[in-house]
């Protein structure tokens, strides 16, 4: 591996050096080995949807200009892209489905370990979904809400319930262009049909279905996941915690949860505090049981319980290489298959739990909601029993760790700014109207070894803070900000422009607000809806001085998120272009003409400083269109 530093995070580089010396292979090595990556794939002009091919369009010379069936580069790129949307929307939505299932059987009393902790949210949902609440037990209400959410997945016609949360104008645009999702699953299936050989060949029409499925994710599957998790596990509130590999403890049993769904990880919190297991840990010579998280399941239990963060996507292998992880519990999404082989070099036990995600040579303890707590305890016991096998000479825990505040929600903003008795979004709207705040930007998404780990997230975030832009963040980007010390109120002084600083000081909040896991981008949509109903900033999301960015994205889920963000009216800048550049017209459509349809478009910009410029320009243009004053401080 080359000696160039792979990350801006010192803990990551420290463990990477260790890996190099020990000739332990990581994602960074495998990326180097894979270079140069296939150009046809990167440009999106390779089609393998039937076996007359695989076909490739020659992007340079005088080779084939269409596939064997006659599909052009634009058609092929569009088909490939919306299939990515289908996969991403399926992943988020299946997560939402699992949570709905958990709520349903919990309400029937068929589970061990779950209770309804978010009663207020449940009652609000019941009202929204026309579920009777008078003189009914909370379980009965939960049951009906869960059933109604379940029905959204298989619904064949009509409109998804939560799309009605969007501003009226937005809903009209969706109706006009047939973007309103009819059912979550139906739209995903239709993508697979339309992209089958010889069906939909018009790239604009193909994208229309991609948008519809993506909206079924953002305003459907993801939103259901977020809302029902709040019902089951409780509303997150700002909470202090610690992040980075330094949270692992030398003298305690370290359990790392990694993946996405909190149905098990939240129960792991309870199980890890079990007296009997703590006693067993002491018998084995450990001082306690230390639970930490990686990726979005970490975000979930961080914002509800303050469980520390061990790292983000590109650090999953590094956690094992510290030699201090006794057990890594994985469920679904973003879990690298490489963990299996890597764990063989250490004492770490990797345990898969989802029937949907198994790994060769990895012990599988199948999770079921009915037996959640006993299963969680069993896994904690495995970790404790593995602790004595830890090889002291292989343990290297970096010192780096950082304080953070996480757990902001659309609901919390009311109280954060308005106080306990006059809950309101008014101060937020006023801050934007007066120009103290230029606007707000959601920085989200993954890590990608194509970009120096965390670098683009942090550069973009800092560049925007300086320009008085409030940053909200989720997923691995949130974890990057956490490790860099951007999620503490003190960060405002260090990084924010004067206007943003004044707000952070008055409210006592960090300049970057942690809003949860990747499904919680639905929370950001709700914030925008609330801002609009507060008034004074236009009638539609596309009127607002807001934008989104995914500077280091890699997952298909990010494609779906990008599409529902743009289709909701949010200008979105990606650090890595969609694999469509081989099709000129589709590229032109997505990065330009799409604005005429949905009031927003994509930008592709790998340089985070240039991306910040694009975003600031966009925010200023939106401010101007709203006839707002220029920003209070600065140019």
């Amino acid at each position, binding site marked *: 591996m080359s000696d160039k530093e792979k990350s801006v995070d010192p803990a990551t580089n420290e463990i990477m050096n260790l890996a190099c010396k020990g000739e332990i292979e990581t994602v960074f090595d495998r990326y180097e080995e894979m270079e140069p990556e296939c150009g046809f794939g990167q440009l999106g002009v390779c089609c393998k949807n039937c076996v007359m091919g695989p076909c490739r369009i020659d992007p340079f*010379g005088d080779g084939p200009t269409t596939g064997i069936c006659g599909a052009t580069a634009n058609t092929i790129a569009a088909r490939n892209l919306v299939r990515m949307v289908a996969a991403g929307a399926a992943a988020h939505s299946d997560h939402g489905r699992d949570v709905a299932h958990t709520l349903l059987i919990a309400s029937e009393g068929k589970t061990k370990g779950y209770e309804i902790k978010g009663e207020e949210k449940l009652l609000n949902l019941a009202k929204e979904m026309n579920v009777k609440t008078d003189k009914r037990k909370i379980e009965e209400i939960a049951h009906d809400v869960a059933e109604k959410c379940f029905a959204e997945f298989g619904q064949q016609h009509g409109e998804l319930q939560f799309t009605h949360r969007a501003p009226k104008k937005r809903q009209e645009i969706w109706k006009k262009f047939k973007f309103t999702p009819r059912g979550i699953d139906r739209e995903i299936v239709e993508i697979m049909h339309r992209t089958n050989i010889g069906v939909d060949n018009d790239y604009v029409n193909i994208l229309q279905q991609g948008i519809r499925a993506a909206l079924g994710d953002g305003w459907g599957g993801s939103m259901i996941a977020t809302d029902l998790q709040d019902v089951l596990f409780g509303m997150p509130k700002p909470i202090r915690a610690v992040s980075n590999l330094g949270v692992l403890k030398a003298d305690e049993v370290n359990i790392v949860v990694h993946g996405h769904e909190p149905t098990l990880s939240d129960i792991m919190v309870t199980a890890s505090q079990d007296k009997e297991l703590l006693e067993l840990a002491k018998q084995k010579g450990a001082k306690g049981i230390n639970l930490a998280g990686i990726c979005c399941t970490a975000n979930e239990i961080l914002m509800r319980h303050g469980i520390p963060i061990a790292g983000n996507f590109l650090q999953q292998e590094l956690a094992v290489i510290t030699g201090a992880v006794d057990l890594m519990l994985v469920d679904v999404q973003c879990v690298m298959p490489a963990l299996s082989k890597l764990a063989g070099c250490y004492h770490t036990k990797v345990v898969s739990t989802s029937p949907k995600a198994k790994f060769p040579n990895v012990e599988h303890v199948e999770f079921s909601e009915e037996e959640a707590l006993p299963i969680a305890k069993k896994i904690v016991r495995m970790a404790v029993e593995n602790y004595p096998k830890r090889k002291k000479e292989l343990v290297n825990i970096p010192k780096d760790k950082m304080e953070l505040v996480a757990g902001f929600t659309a609901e919390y903003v009311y109280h954060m700014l308005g106080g306990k008795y006059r809950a309101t979004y008014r101060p937020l709207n006023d801050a934007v109207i007066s120009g103290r705040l230029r606007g707000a930007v959601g920085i989200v998404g993954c890590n990608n070894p194509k970009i120096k780990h965390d670098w683009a997230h942090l550069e973009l975030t800092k560049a925007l803070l300086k320009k008085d832009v409030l940053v909200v963040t989720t997923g691995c980007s949130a974890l990057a900000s956490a490790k860099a010390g951007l999620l503490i109120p003190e960060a405002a002084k260090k990084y924010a422009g004067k206007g943003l600083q004044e707000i952070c000081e008055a409210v006592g909040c960090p300049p970057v607000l942690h809003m949860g896991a990747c499904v919680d981008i639905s929370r950001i949509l709700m914030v925008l809806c609330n801002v609009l109903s507060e008034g004074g900033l236009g009638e539609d999301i596309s009127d607002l001085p807001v934008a989104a960015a995914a500077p280091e994205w890699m997952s298909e889920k990010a494609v779906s998120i990008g599409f529902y963000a743009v289709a909701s009216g949010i200008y979105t800048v990606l650090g890595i272009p969609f694999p469509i550049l081989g099709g000129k017209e589709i590229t032109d459509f997505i990065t330009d003409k799409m604005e005429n349809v949905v009031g927003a478009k994509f930008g592709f910009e790998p340089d985070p400083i240039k991306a910040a410029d694009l975003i600031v320009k966009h925010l200023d243009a939106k401010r101007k269109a709203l006839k707002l004053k220029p920003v209070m401080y600065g140019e």
Partner: protein
Amino acid sequence: MKKVYCEVSKCLGCRSCEIACAVEHSKGKTLFLAIKEDPISIQRRKVQSVSKLVISDACHHCIEAPCVNACMSGAMYKEKDGSTQHDEEKCVGCWMCIMACPFGTISRSKKLAIKCDLCKDNVKGPMCVISCPTKALLFKEVQRGDL
């Protein structure tokens, strides 16, 4: 001299070499920039199917090069290292080199003949070789009968 050889049994016909060649000979030198250029960069290497075998082929840099003999403007010449090079400044686009090449490895842009230059300006060597995912392309010195 060192030349690029294709080990036919390893070539999967993925055409990564073609892309790498076009990118290397573009102005931007990266895929995402090259794709936007006008005129677009043209690759000098071609993957061809020959009696059910796949081969990636470009200029063979013949010791006695028919293209050099055929060139009327002196654009095509033998370099001291033994490679066959093409001075685009001198090329008049008469296409005699294309007629003369026994392997069909010279192509044409609008006005000029275009051929493999072994990426002489790149210290890393020929990019087609670096890009080959199966290592079917080799850049090495070969004596008669070695392959």
